[in-house]
């Protein structure tokens, strides 16, 4: 049993990503989309917080939204997997439920 969570807010804007990571279960997947992709970057003030809270959670980022924002793929944090929309669909299908953190 697992949940796919999506987050679409920058962690610099509000606590949504933090709240999501605080509620996700070990083995759940968290996919950062839209402005949420800023939560997937390395080398910023939130990187360690996200890595710490996400230690037992599988972290993903939507590649299309990373590219749209001019973020070099090399800046995506280690341990965060980049996916495309087809893989997003596949993740939604293979989990038990989807929870969207708005």
């Amino acid at each position, binding site marked *: 049993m697992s949940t796919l969570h999506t987050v679409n807010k920058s962690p610099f804007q509000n606590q949504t990503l933090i709240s999501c990571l605080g509620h996700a279960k070990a083995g759940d997947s968290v996919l950062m*989309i839209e402005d949420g992709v800023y939560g997937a970057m390395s080398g910023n003030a939130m990187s360690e917080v996200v890595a710490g809270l996400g230690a037992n959670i599988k972290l993903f980022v939507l590649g*299309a939204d990373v590219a749209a924002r001019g973020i070099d793929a090399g800046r995506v944090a280690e341990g965060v997997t980049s996916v495309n929309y087809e893989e997003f669909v596949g993740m939604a*299908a293979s989990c038990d439920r989807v929870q969207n953190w708005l």
Partner: protein
Amino acid sequence: MKFGIVVSEGPYTHQASDSAYNFVKAALATGHEVSRVFFYHDGVNVGTRLSIPPQDDRQIQEQWTALAKEHELDLVICIAAAQRRGLLDQNEADRQGKDANNIAEGFRISGLGQLIEMGIQADRTITFGD
């Protein structure tokens, strides 16, 4: 697998309707079914046929209308949210004594019960919003 999709932000202001569109296209391309797309909150504004976006931008309403036509998608605009925001089909316009309608081809207006029904019938319900 059957997906139900909720779009709860307006076009252009928010990326939600674009993300939902990309998700639906990808789901259909990978052999899944999309049982319904339900537009709620400001998401109802996706369904106006009177928007005129700049030529060099994506045409959000037209994209949805075309996708709905190609795949016989059920695009439902919430009536309660639509009434607040001035989205009407001809039926509603007649009933409410308004002089125009503005709903785009491929969309229909119906009640919130359609959202709950979608949640019951779909294998996964996914919301794109703010």
